């Protein structure tokens, strides 16, 4: 293969708000450049997890290399790096962006700029990427490309008048986009003769090759046999294979040099050793400084995950282990609950991440899970001067030992049409939000800025936001820091026994309301027993709410006619089967659905 000239390489990504057509545009680009015939194309090539396709979101960064014959007669190498599209994966996004030299900003011709669009554009600009916009979905009747162009210029301040007007879905205007990539994305810089300096922007685990590291070579070169070192984690290895990304496959090559995007394998066993954002260098000829911006990713949200069938605990452990191989941001450690038995306390980047892991465990590993209410990390300052980071509410020390507590607070940006400003502000108020500012983007849309406690948004904030704005509000946030707060632990007692898996930390002012709702919900979920069951909510030993599940008076079989007992037996079997799915707490059997139902207290 001929040597690739640096000037003919274009490393870029596509940034967009969810649903604005990022993945579809990626597909069209791949199709247009002839990498796959349209028959071979499965819709949205880059989202290769079943879940990604179904939810229409990208979870892991995907990368593909394409050869484009430009109108100037030259061949260009495009490396398209598809970034995850959710606030939970902000750090991954920022690392993917750092691997690029330019970005295509896709904006929906009807909807215009959304909160996430802004967040992503700012992120891209922070990484000195050249951003050029394209207006998608111009075939929609409601498309207003001129308005959107002006909006882009006004709000973001980038040139948009000559933005390609396209429809990725119908393949309109794709040529124009390809030419724009050639002309607007700068060629990579960096000397191939300098010491090796490569940015890790993702990695996946392969059971034969070990960890496959996705990297962008900033300087120097790497080939089979190069001894490498990850500068942050300190791990060392010898490169076994380097290559680039075909559509859905890895294609080995001789060497990766400055400006190129590709992968390397080095018999690395653990994704932990190849943290996203780390710098790979040559062990024998290291670069002086690592690339900037590396940080250790921390879990923001924790919850307990338990197998519905206690005997499946080893299966759950194996499944988590396997997921962890590919997902360094997933943390878990074993924990035991009196109510739920053996399980794991798992840490996630955010609620979407949590949901994705949960769904993958259930789908790909066929596990039936019981999940406890998600919790953030609280900082508990004890009277003896010690500080503990609390991820499981059950571990809260006795109130007498606590000096004060802090909770994480996020800076949130909510983009909303002006008619819904009222309801959204009210929602933020209810969730203990601190108002910062309102910026009018145009006459009909505004950007609300709030500071919100993280624990107020991890349950159902997003759903509430959507329902109160009829789906029009968009939302983005980042962790701001910790603030002192008046927090209490709410305990639930069922038949006078505390159920550890139902305890959670809540702001003192909403404890009563939450406790009352919990009790009401549980009353509906817990079937009647032979005896009366009190359900109580308590804070620090004081009962603040109570409901009662009345005792079962009657449960008798109907007439058993003509000796046909099969129906009756089925009824008894159903009853027995139902009981198997229950959790025994004291002498009360609690259905697993009860543990989950309390996560959705605001359902009307």
């Amino acid at each position: 293969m001929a040597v690739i000239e640096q000037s003919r390489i274009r490393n870029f990504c596509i940034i967009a708000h969810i649903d604005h057509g990022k993945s579809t545009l990626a597909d069209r680009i791949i199709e247009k450049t002839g990498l796959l015939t349209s028959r071979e194309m499965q819709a949205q090539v880059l989202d290769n997890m079943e879940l990604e396709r179904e939810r229409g979101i990208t979870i892991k960064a995907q990368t593909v290399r394409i050869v484009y014959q430009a109108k100037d007669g030259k061949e260009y190498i495009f490396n398209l790096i598809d970034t995850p599209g959710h606030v939970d994966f902000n750090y991954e996004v920022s690392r993917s962006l750092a691997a690029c030299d330019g970005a295509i900003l896709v904006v929906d011709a009807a909807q215009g700029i959304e909160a996430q669009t802004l967040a992503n554009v700012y992120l891209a600009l922070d990484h000195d990427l050249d951003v050029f916009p394209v207006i998608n979905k111009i075939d929609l009747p409601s498309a207003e490309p001129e308005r959107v162009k002006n909006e882009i210029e006004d709000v973001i301040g980038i040139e948009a008048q000559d933005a390609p007007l396209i429809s990725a879905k119908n393949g309109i205007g794709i040529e124009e986009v390809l030419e724009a990539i050639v002309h607007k994305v700068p060629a990579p810089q960096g000397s191939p003769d300098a010491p090796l300096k490569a940015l890790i922007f993702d990695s996946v685990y392969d059971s034969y090759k070990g960890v496959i590291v996705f990297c962008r070579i900033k300087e120097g070169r790497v080939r089979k046999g190069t001894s490498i070192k990850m500068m942050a984690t300190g791990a060392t290895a010898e490169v076994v294979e380097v290559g680039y990304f075909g559509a859905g496959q890895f294609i080995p090559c001789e060497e990766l040099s400055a400006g190129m995007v590709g992968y390397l394998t080095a018999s690395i066993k653990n994704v932990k050793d190849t943290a996203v954002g780390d710098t790979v260098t040559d062990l024998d000829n290291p670069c002086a400084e690592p690339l900037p911006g590396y940080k250790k990713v921390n879990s923001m949200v924790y919850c307990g995950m338990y197998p519905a069938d206690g005997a499946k605990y080893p299966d759950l452990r194996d499944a988590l282990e396997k997921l962890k191989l590919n997902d360094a941001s997933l943390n878990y450690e074993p924990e035991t609950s009196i109510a739920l038995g053996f399980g794991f306390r798992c840490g996630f980047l955010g609620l979407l991440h949590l949901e994705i892991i949960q769904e993958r465990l259930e789908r790909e590993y066929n596990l039936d899970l019981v999940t406890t209410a998600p919790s953030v990390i609280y900082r508990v300052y004890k009277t003896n001067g010690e500080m503990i980071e609390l991820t499981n509410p059950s571990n809260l020390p006795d109130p007498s030992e606590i000096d004060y507590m802090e909770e994480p607070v996020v800076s949130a940006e909510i983009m909303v049409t002006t008619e819904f400003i009222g309801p959204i502000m009210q929602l933020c108020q209810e969730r203990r939000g601190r108002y910062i500012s309102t910026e009018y983007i145009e006459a009909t849309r505004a950007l609300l800025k709030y500071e919100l406690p993280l624990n107020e948004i991890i349950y159902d904030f997003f759903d509430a936001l959507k329902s109160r704005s009829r789906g029009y509000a968009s939302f983005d946030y980042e962790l701001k820091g910790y603030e002192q707060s008046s927090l209490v632990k709410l305990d639930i007692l069922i038949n006078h026994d505390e159920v550890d898996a139902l305890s959670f930390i809540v702001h003192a002012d909403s404890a009563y309301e939450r406790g009352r709702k919990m009790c009401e919900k549980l009353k509906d979920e817990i079937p009647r027993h032979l005896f009366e069951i009190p359900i109580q909510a308590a804070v620090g030993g004081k009962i603040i709410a109570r409901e009662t599940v009345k005792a079962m008076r009657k449960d008798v079989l109907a007439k058993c006619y003509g000796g046909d007992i099969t129906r009756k037996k089925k009824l008894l079997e159903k009853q027995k089967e139902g009981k198997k799915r229950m959790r025994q707490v004291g002498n009360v059997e609690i259905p697993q659905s009860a543990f989950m139902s309390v996560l959705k207290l605001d359902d009307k």
Partner: protein
Amino acid sequence: MRDLSIYIHIPFCVRKCLYCDFLSFTASAGEIESYVNLLVQEIEEQSVFYRDHRVISVFLGGGTPSILPAEEIGRILQAVRENYRMTDEVEITMECNPGTVTAEKLGNYITYGINRLSIGLQSTQDEELARIGRIHDYEMFLHTYRAARTAGFVNINIDLMAALPGQSIASYRESLERVADLAPEHISAYSLILEEGTPLYERKGQYSFPTEDEDREMYQMTKEYLAERGYQRYEISNYAREGFACRHNQVYWQRGDYVGFGLGAASMVGDVRWSAPESMKEYKDYVENMRTCTENVFQQAGVQVLTMQEQMEECMFLGLRMMCGVGCQDFYEKFGCTMEAVYGPVIEKMISQNLLQKENGYIKLTDRGIDVSNYVMAEFLFE
């Protein structure tokens, strides 16, 4: 020689009651006749399997068997007599509804050897009867009952129902008293169970039903009042004067052999269960193919050979419906292991919750256990 009971299903009714989810429907005279032909054929065909059985009871149930012309009933019973060996004391029961029999019909029944009549009354309150869609009123019932006595029936059951829409404890009590005053030999008293898919279920919102507490009070009252009047409760919902407990009924709970003839009829012989098809067309095929005994017949009948575990489960959850309970010795003789070894912990737990009691080597439900018998019985199923 083993004992055998025979159930014969007549799936026809004048019209369907609003609470009914049994296999029954209306039919023309022609349809009835061709059904009886099939029935007779089935009775004949199957008899070869029961050469070493003797019949201790026959039960004609439905539906409403009494809407058949008397001669058709005669034809059916004749087929039974000609093809099966009957004991001298064989109990032959027929169900009938008020308003479907005449003195003449009843006289014929006696001639055919029917010696037990089960009359569906359900309530003595006409409004209550109308609400559940019965075809008769209390007056019609009285007429039928007296005619049955006159015809010579000395063993009569009356069906009653509690927990009917609009029923009160007082109105139920009155039904109980009136029925006891008539002095039938046997009384069945069931609580109405609203089955999904029945018209009554669909319109349940229109009525006020007795509460669970009232339902249990009615049940308790039934037991106590009928005991005063000389009726012993021998099964969860059945009461009889001394010596008049229904033999056929007990066979079901004590897992004796029984064979069912007719549409959808269930059978259990030698720990094998099966049922005839429930659609008339399939039933016809089934009977007509019986002689060649093709694989298809077995498939249609859904033949199920009960495992030892299933037999044990049945032994417990069926047997517990009998007030005498399940005998530990009987269990041992049947299965070759003790009840203690199989169900020890369950029984222990149920006794500690005051739902079961052990008396003279029998395990039986307590009064509280009867109220929640499903809960107790489900405990005896294996994982």
